[in-house]
Structure formats: C-alpha cells, structure tokens
C-alpha cells in the first residue's frame, strides 16, 4: 500500500511538474465542496447530508444508471447488426444478431438484460427526480437553466428508450414504433416532413432502423453527454439545492440567484461521495439480479402485414397510449364526430388532440420558469402549484391504467364497454379527488400562517 501510494505520488509529481495541475485540482476540490448544502438542519449532526434526505439519491441513481447504460450499450454494439432487410415475418440480421447476443455471446444475455432493466430503472429514477423537482420549483431560485436542461434530458431519455425498443426488429418493437410514427405524422402541417426527415419515410422500413440505430448509439449519446455535463456543472456552480425546511432560514444565501456559501458538511470525499457509491452499488446489484433472471427475449420477427394480438408500448409510454384511447372514449361519450379537417388541417380528431395535449404538457414544463414566477418555493405554502402537480401525477397514473383496458377487461372478464366506461370515469374523477383535499388543506394552512405572520 505504501509502495503504491509512493508510486502514485511520483506519477502525480511527474505530471504536475510538466503541466502544473495542482492549482486546477485544488480549485476543483474547492468548487465541489462549495457545492454541498450549507444550511444547518437537523441532519447536520451526522455530517452526511444525504442520510436525512433519501430523495436526493434519485438524481445520483439516474446518473449511475446512465453510465451503466453507456457501458453495456458499448458492449452490445460490438455484436448488434442494424439491418432490417428481409421478407416480412422472416428474421432479419438485426433480429438474428440479438438472438446471437442472447445465446452465443459469453455473458451476452446478462449484458442485454442489464441494458434493458437499466433503461427501465433509469426512467423510474428519472421520473422520481423530475416529479420531486416539479414539486420544488427550482426555477424560482435561480435554477431556470438547470430546470430547462432537466426537462430536455427527460425528453432525451424517452427518445433514447423509444429508439432502443425498435432495434431488435421484433413484432412488439415494430408495432409500437409504427403507432408512434403514425402519431408523429398526425402533428398538424409538419407531421409528414418530420417523419420523413427523421425516419426516412412515412412508414417503417430498413432505412428507419439505420437512422434509429445512429440516433441511439451516436447522435443522442453526444447530446446526452453535453446536456448531462451542463446539468451537473450548474450544480457545482450553484450548489446542491437545499432541503425545503432550510429554505429562507439560511442566512448564507442569495435568494435571487440561489447561490449559497457558508459552513460545510464533511468534505465531498469521502463524506458525501460514500453514500452515493453505496447506493450506486445497491442499484447495480438490483439491475444485475433483474438482468440475470428476468431478461425479456425478443418476440416473433417483425411482420408488417400482421399486427400481434396484444401490443403495448413500454410502461412509461402507457400514459400517452392511454391518452389517445381516452380522448376517443370522451368523443364517443359526447357523440362527437370530429370533422375531417378544420381550415384544411386535421385538428380535432382524437389522435391529433392527444398529441397536442402531450406536446402542450412538454412545452408547459419547458416554460415553467416563465409561467410560474415568484420567490416562494415551499411546497406547503403554494396550494395551487402543489395541487396541480398532484393532479398531474393522478392524471398520468390513471391514463396508464386506461391504456390497459383490454388486458383488464379480459382478466376481470368485464365487457370492454363497461370497462372503458369505468376507466374513463376514473381518469376524470380520481385525479380531482386526489387534488381537491390537497388544495383545501393547503389553502387553509396558507391563510392560517398568513394571519399568524400578520
């Protein structure tokens, strides 16, 4: 050990003499320590900030999984062949190479399993991270750019998984992608041009696979590295966002710019990095177990003339799938027959309304720093904002449930009409039922504390 550290020291000195890196490293250490939360809270006694606030882990887990996806993806890229040329229903090179990875490549099945489960868990961790941030309104404390980068990264993760889902060129991926492409084509005016430019045609073809593969392994990777790098760099510049209870009690903070300084917890290494390493290792263990024992094998090879019995997108796209079905149900209920076109553009058919709602949700998220201004960030002091987030979570969850209407109907042997009626009403009622009491309670608290302060 002694020998090793002496060697390391000599190597470091050798580099330092030539390139003078000591000041850089000292500055990096200073910045990272500076970035740690500075406010005195009840957790200070442990000197390890993260212990008291487990939800802070979601971002770290997402980052760890993203790195893991990079490593496993790199290994898979050695064997995968992005070619979908062949007769419909016959295995293509892409399909065969995935089978080859599963059966012949040493540890191939495990690597693919880890890549697949890693993607699922990454989206889950990212969703927790995103919803928590949505509750916290970081754009109100000088973190507008972090927020916008975060929303872009959320979109990026979804595009990433969408492009990956198609690569095995099996029935499930093919038809999930077909529906998504047709939804993209339904975007008013620009739909066809977008589909043609991004996918090389208005329907799936071998050209589409080539492009998806390029996006998945190259273009999106570059975008991801840049966006994640910027997202993390801003944390170092501005400091880790502090727990809500500490907000506004901190004397060491500029409430306009969000910059903070002051007494530190233990230093970044080892006090703060240790729990992150531990939680990452636990995550790795879970992904390895899932990847080893629950890997999903590709279904039948893609056949463009045969839609399989059950088709469903990945779980995190079910809300969008449910939204399309639900808008159709609302139309049926209202006996509304959408006109073919409005001003020559298809604007009111169920799929266009569905895509407009989903697009509007994304744009609203992006524009939150402009829409939602003010300085109050405490969740409990913001009745309307918190209520809207609760409603949104309810809406997305119940839409996910609606997407499963056929499976639920056959499982519970309830006629599909009855099932749709029940689920359709659930989508309307449950989010409101969840949001209403939240609003009433918070509203009362807000007036109470306002009168106390007065």
């Amino acid at each position, binding site marked *: 050990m002694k020998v090793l550290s002496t060697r390391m020291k000599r190597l470091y000195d050798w580099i330092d003499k030539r390139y003078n890196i000591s000041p850089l490293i000292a500055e990096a250490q200073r910045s990272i320590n500076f970035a740690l939360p500075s406010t005195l809270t009840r957790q200070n006694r442990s000197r390890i900030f993260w212990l008291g606030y487990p939800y802070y882990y979601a971002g770290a887990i997402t980052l760890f999984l993203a790195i893991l996806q990079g490593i496993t993806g790199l290994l898979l890229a050695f064997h995968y062949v992005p070619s979908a040329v062949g007769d419909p229903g016959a295995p293509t090179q892409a399909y065969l190479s995935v089978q080859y990875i599963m059966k012949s490549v040493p540890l191939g099945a495990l690597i693919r399993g880890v890549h697949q489960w890693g993607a699922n868990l990454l989206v889950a961790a990212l969703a927790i991270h995103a919803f928590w941030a949505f509750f916290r309104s970081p754009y109100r404390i000088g973190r507008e750019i972090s927020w916008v980068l975060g929303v872009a990264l959320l979109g990026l993760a979804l595009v990433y998984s969408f492009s990956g889902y198609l690569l095995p060129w099996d029935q499930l991926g093919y038809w999930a992608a077909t*529906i998504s492409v*047709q939804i993209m084509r339904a975007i008013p005016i620009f739909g066809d041009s977008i589909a*043609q430019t991004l996918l090389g045609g208005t329907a799936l073809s071998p050209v589409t696979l080539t492009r998806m593969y390029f996006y998945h392994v190259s273009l999106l990777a570059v975008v991801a590295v840049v966006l994640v790098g910027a997202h993390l760099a801003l944390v170092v510049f501005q400091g880790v966002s502090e727990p809500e209870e500490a907000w506004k009690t901190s004397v060491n903070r500029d409430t306009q710019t969000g910059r903070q300084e002051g007494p530190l917890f233990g230093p970044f290494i080892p006090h703060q990095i240790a729990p992150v390493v531990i939680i990452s290792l636990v995550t790795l263990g879970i992904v390895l177990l899932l990847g080893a024992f629950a890997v999903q094998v590709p279904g039948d090879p893609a056949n463009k003339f045969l839609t399989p019995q059950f088709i469903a997108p990945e779980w995190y796209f079910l809300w969008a799938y449910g939204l399309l079905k639900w808008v159709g149900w609302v139309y049926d209920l209202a006996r509304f027959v959408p006109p073919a076109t409005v001003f020559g553009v298809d604007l009111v058919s169920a799929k266009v309304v569905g895509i407009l709602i989903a697009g509007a949700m994304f744009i609203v998220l992006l524009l939150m720093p402009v829409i939602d201004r003010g300085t109050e960030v405490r969740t409990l002091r913001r009745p309307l904002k918190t209520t809207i987030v609760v409603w949104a979570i309810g809406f997305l969850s119940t839409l996910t449930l609606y997407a499963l209407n056929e499976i639920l109907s056959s499982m519970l042997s309830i006629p599909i009409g009855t099932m749709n009626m029940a689920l359709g009403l659930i989508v309307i009622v449950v989010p409101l039922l969840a949001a209403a009491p939240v609003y009433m309670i918070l509203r009362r608290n807000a007036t109470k504390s306002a009168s106390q302060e007065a």
Partner: protein
Amino acid sequence: MSEKSAGDRGKKKRPTMNRRQFVQTVVAAGIAGTILSFLSLLMSLLPSAGAGEEQGEVNNVFTYGPEKGAWYSDKSGNEVLLEDFDQVGKGAGVLWRGRIPAIVIRVDESKLRGATATNGLIAFASTCTHLCCIATWRLDRPSEDVLFCRCHDGVFDAYNVVKDVMPDGTEYLGAKVVAGPPPRAAPIIPIEVKDGKVSGVPDNLELYGYCG
C-alpha cells in the same frame, strides 16, 4: 450641435460606416452565409427518389396472409381461390400486390348496403385509417360482421359501405367506422374473379397509400 444640424438641413442623413466596420460586417455575413449554406445538406435526409416503388411485374391476385390460428393459416402465401369461400361470413386476411394488406369476405348480398359484391365476395384494405395497424376479420370478434383493429379498438362495419374522403380530397367507398378512433372508412378494393382466382382491380392504387 445646433450649427451642425442647421448645416445638414435639407440633406438626407446617410448612415456611415468606417472601413473596419465594413470589413467586420462582410466577414460576419460571409461566415453566416457559409453556415447557412451547410444546412442545405440536410436535404440528404429526405427520402431518395424512386425508393419504395414497385418493381417488376405485379400480380393482382390476392394471396393469403400470415395470421396464426385462422382457417387459412396453412395456406399463407398461396393464391386466394373463390372455392375457399364456401359460406357466408367466411373471410380471410390477404395481401394484394405483395404490399397492401386487405380482407376478402363472402357476404350475404341481401344485407350489404352501399356496394355490390362480386361473386358474393367483397374486399377492403385492412390497414387501419387511424394509426396503420392491420385490422382482422373475426379473429378477435368471431361473432360479429366487423373488421376489428386491435391497436385502439377500431371497428368497421363490412355490411355498411359508405362514401368517404381522403385528406387529399379523393372520394372513395369504404366500410363505415362504427366504433373507436379511426377517422375514415376502410377503402373497398374492387374484385374480379378469373379462373377461380380472386384478384383486386388496380384502378386507383394511390388511394391505398395512406399509411406511407
């Protein structure tokens, strides 16, 4: 100041630019123009001319489709024969010209509205007008006379042929949408029967290109 403006009166004031500013502007415009001209390379992302066109001689006789668990499953790829449709309600998922999925059905001609059958048969393009999944006949709903699409529960009534309009304005006849999200009827494919083989009449092929 007042003297100067008095002297300038009557002349239109011209914007002035010194030589340094001129060079800066020209260089900036040149760089911007070069970058913009590179955007034209994005044209290469558009589909190439001639891609996806049919090549060689195309047979108009329908061939049986690849559905599993249907009465025609073991005939998949074979030509569709009139004699196979021996009773009313029998129908098959087929392929037309090797690329257009369709459904051929033996119908009860007295119940059929809006169109006439050929030798008791009628055919519809089975690509759903909603999001381009392939609808089936009696695989999911064995007791009903409908074309059913699994993706979003679209239902087309095979016995009720109505007039409809494509987004490009083409009028056509098709199986009426009776439930679910499809925006348009499923287009009919005219049939002719020769030597016992059932084939489609390619009068208006563009009509069936609505899914790209």
